């Protein structure tokens, strides 16, 4: 055995370490990591890589067709077409500016202050701004791929619509990079500021900011919906555009983006270059400010955040546990205990329930205002359409909830997985416990929302009953899919639920959930739609359903939905149980 290390005699160290050397080391690290990950993806996970690529292409193509159709539709309004496109671009990029600001800010915050890698890097000679740059590039790449996926089909569709020259497509890429850099830098500066000013309150700050922005969005949507005049008429459009005029403010980076891109599409190159210079100069400045802020405040912020985690919350059992046991006496006690554990974990992480609360709260706010929008006074055809759309939106929201929170449940057991394995329970009972937990929460939230929507729309008891049944099928199915696939495709190495949800298993879970929702909603919505359409428009009588046909097809649709629902619940759960039973802990 050798234990002799010859150090100082033979080793020559260039001291002090130059910043360019540290930068080179970090570049080398990134290059090695990307190369190794690609090699693994291409050799061991070809199916996964192909699925992701295929889904991205399908998504891109779908968006492209949607945007192309949208631009063709806007072309109908000859006088207002250019103005509408300008407003649409400004609103689109303003929304993306806000989303990029938050997503990059949150990812940068986690990467700088809560990752083990940054702890390691902070002990090396790399300067704080160099570490910031390294993590910032990762955060930008992670948060902006969706932006490219959304922005590129929009721009290509618009370019084709107006016969833009090839230069437009090249310039559009430079615009996108500058825009992402600007929004991301602002988000990163905010992340470092929050760590320094509110080291213990970062989640509260985030929740309050998101709530404020969502309130602004609701207010804006309300203003647009309440615009007077006949829908889609020129007058109505003029009023709506007037209410959206704030997005045309010349100080918004999104305005520079839209004005510059539109100019380049029309081959007004001087204007296009002018806005590109403004945007890229501000992006460069924002990044520079971010680097200076990181140089001066990153280490201080890190120390404050690490110190800020010392407040010890004491858990109180209170009366809830006995109450819960009494209410769910029919479930085996071990399963009740597992549900209580998951419930406690869920409630003690505000990042989880606050998102749930905000989105479901917004939906409830909209449903409660249905009568103010006079939807309840519309014809049965429109009310039926709106009620099914409301139900579909509720189901889609539920699917994001189950993909984001229920799918990662088993993965999050991670290193403690063996505890579950050693419990005096059959393994399938553990999954049934998680299924009961998910279904319980989902049923309470979504049934309340759908009942609220139907009551406000003054729907008939038959349709209300139908919707309640549909939602129950959807809740059980989506819970079964998320619990089953969560057990079949666990990621035991990851502790961040958002990363688990964003991985292959989470994406597949979301896709399967969407297909499930589409199957159930379409099966039941179609007969209702055909029946009410016949009542609304006489010219549709040829293919509309009579009352007798409606009852027949509704029974068929309900039977099909129940079968699909049962299969959608049982099959994923069976797959999950089988995988969980065979899993070596």
């Amino acid at each position, binding site marked *: 055995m050798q*234990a002799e290390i010859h150090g*100082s005699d033979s*080793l020559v160290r260039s001291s002090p370490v130059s910043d360019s050397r540290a930068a080179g080391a970090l570049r080398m690290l990134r290059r090695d990591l990307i190369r*190794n990950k690609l090699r693994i993806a291409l050799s061991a996970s070809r199916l996964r890589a192909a699925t992701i690529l295929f889904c991205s292409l399908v998504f891109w193509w779908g968006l492209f067709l949607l945007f192309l159709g949208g631009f063709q539709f806007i072309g109908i309004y000859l006088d207002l077409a250019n103005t509408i496109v300008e407003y649409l671009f400004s609103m689109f990029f303003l929304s993306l500016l806000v989303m990029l600001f938050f997503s990059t800010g949150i990812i940068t915050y986690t990467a700088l202050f809560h990752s083990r890698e940054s702890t390691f890097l*902070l002990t090396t000679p790399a300067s704080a701004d160099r570490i910031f740059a390294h993590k910032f590039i990762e955060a930008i790449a992670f948060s902006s791929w969706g932006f490219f996926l959304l922005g590129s089909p929009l721009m290509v569709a618009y370019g084709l619509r107006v016969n833009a020259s090839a230069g437009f497509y090249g310039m559009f890429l430079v615009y996108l990079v500058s825009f992402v850099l600007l929004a991301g830098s602002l988000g990163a500066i905010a992340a470092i500021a929050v760590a320094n000013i509110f080291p213990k309150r970062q989640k509260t700050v985030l929740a309050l900011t998101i709530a404020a922005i969502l309130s602004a969005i609701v207010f804006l949507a309300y203003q647009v919906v309440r615009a007077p005049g006949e829908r889609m008429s020129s007058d109505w459009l003029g009023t709506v555009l007037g209410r959206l005029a704030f997005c045309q403010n010349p100080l918004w980076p999104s305005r520079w983006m839209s004005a510059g891109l539109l100019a380049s599409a029309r081959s007004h190159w001087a204007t296009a270059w002018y806005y590109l210079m403004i945007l890229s100069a501000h992006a460069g400045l924002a990044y520079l400010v971010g680097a200076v802020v990181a140089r001066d405040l990153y280490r201080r912020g890190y120390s404050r955040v690490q110190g800020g985690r010392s407040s010890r919350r004491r858990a109180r059992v209170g009366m809830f546990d006995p109450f819960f046991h009494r209410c769910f006496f029919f479930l085996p006690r071990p399963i009740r205990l597992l549900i209580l554990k998951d419930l406690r974990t869920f409630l003690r992480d505000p990042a989880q329930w606050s998102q749930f609360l905000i989105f479901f709260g917004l939906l409830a706010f909209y449903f409660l205002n249905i009568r103010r929008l006079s939807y309840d006074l519309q014809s049965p055809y429109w009310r039926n359409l709106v009620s099914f759309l409301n139900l579909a939106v509720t189901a889609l929201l539920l699917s994001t909830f189950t993909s984001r929170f229920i799918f990662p449940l088993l993965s999050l057991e991670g290193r403690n997985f063996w505890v579950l394995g050693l419990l005096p329970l059959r393994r399938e009972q553990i999954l049934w416990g998680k299924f009961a937990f998910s279904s319980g929460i989902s049923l309470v939230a979504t049934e309340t929302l759908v009942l609220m929507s139907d009551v406000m729309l003054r729907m008939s008891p038959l349709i209300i009953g139908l919707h309640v049944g549909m939602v129950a099928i959807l809740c059980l199915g989506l819970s079964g899919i998320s619990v089953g696939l969560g057990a079949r495709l666990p990621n035991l190495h990851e502790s961040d639920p958002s990363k688990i949800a964003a991985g292959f298993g989470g994406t597949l879970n979301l896709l399967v959930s969407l297909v499930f929702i589409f199957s159930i909603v379409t099966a039941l919505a179609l007969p209702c739609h055909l029946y009410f359409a016949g009542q609304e428009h006489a010219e549709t009588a040829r293919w509309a359903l009579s009352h007798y046909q409606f009852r027949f097809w509704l029974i068929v649709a309900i039977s099909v939905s129940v079968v699909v629902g049962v299969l959608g619940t049982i099959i994923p759960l069976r797959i999950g149980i089988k995988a969980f039973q065979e899993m070596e802990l």
Partner: protein
Amino acid sequence: MIELRNVTKEFGSKRAVDGLDLSVRPGELFAFLGPNGAGKTTTIKMICGLLAPSGGSVRIGGHPASSPEARQLLGYVPDQPYLYDKLSGREFLRFVVEMYGLERRHARSRIDELIDVFEMNDYIDELCENYSQGMKQRVVFASALVHDPKVLVVDEPLVGLDPRSARIVKNLFLTQARAGCAVLMSTHLLAIAEELADTIGIVDHGRMLATGTLGQLRDRLQHQGPLEDLFLKLTGTDGPSLGNEKFAIKQPTTA
């Protein structure tokens, strides 16, 4: 080489480190002992520049602990070491070498030397995600030593190591110290401290209760028993009680 003067660290209303003085000279192997929650890891994080002290000063080789000069002198092995899962051990060592700005022509031989010392030839080119805890620990030790640090700080050095690896690490500590490196190790394994340390510091509730060689501690406490008894006596519990008499550790009677 490591100098802490009247260092305090407060986390809200809690004082984790309270007026701590500590000094480790070049060539000295200092064992930092204390019960759970005594403030050892917080102190180590301040020495590594990860946490800023609320009061007092922390200096490494005369430089403030948060300065690049101090980090250049330092090798740190944390209690939960970090490795990039998608890098091989060799790639990780190459990255560290670059980061510390070592001359490239010497770096390769230095890495090879450490791979031999830690007996990592069999697995060093595999991805770290396939390593056991002990393998990871060896790579981390190698990365902490690859730039020939003047100060080595190790938190719980033997966690996850098999007896052979533990022996390598123990020999390494002694070699480093004899070569002039200041070594600070925090541990719960009193036998290791007793076997290796030149100086022992016992900390509790953020305060240094006693510092000195084992002999000096024995003389000061007028107790000739093993270090474990000294430790329990200093930290205020003759035997941890588990609510049952039969679990209490009896203090051996001294003549």
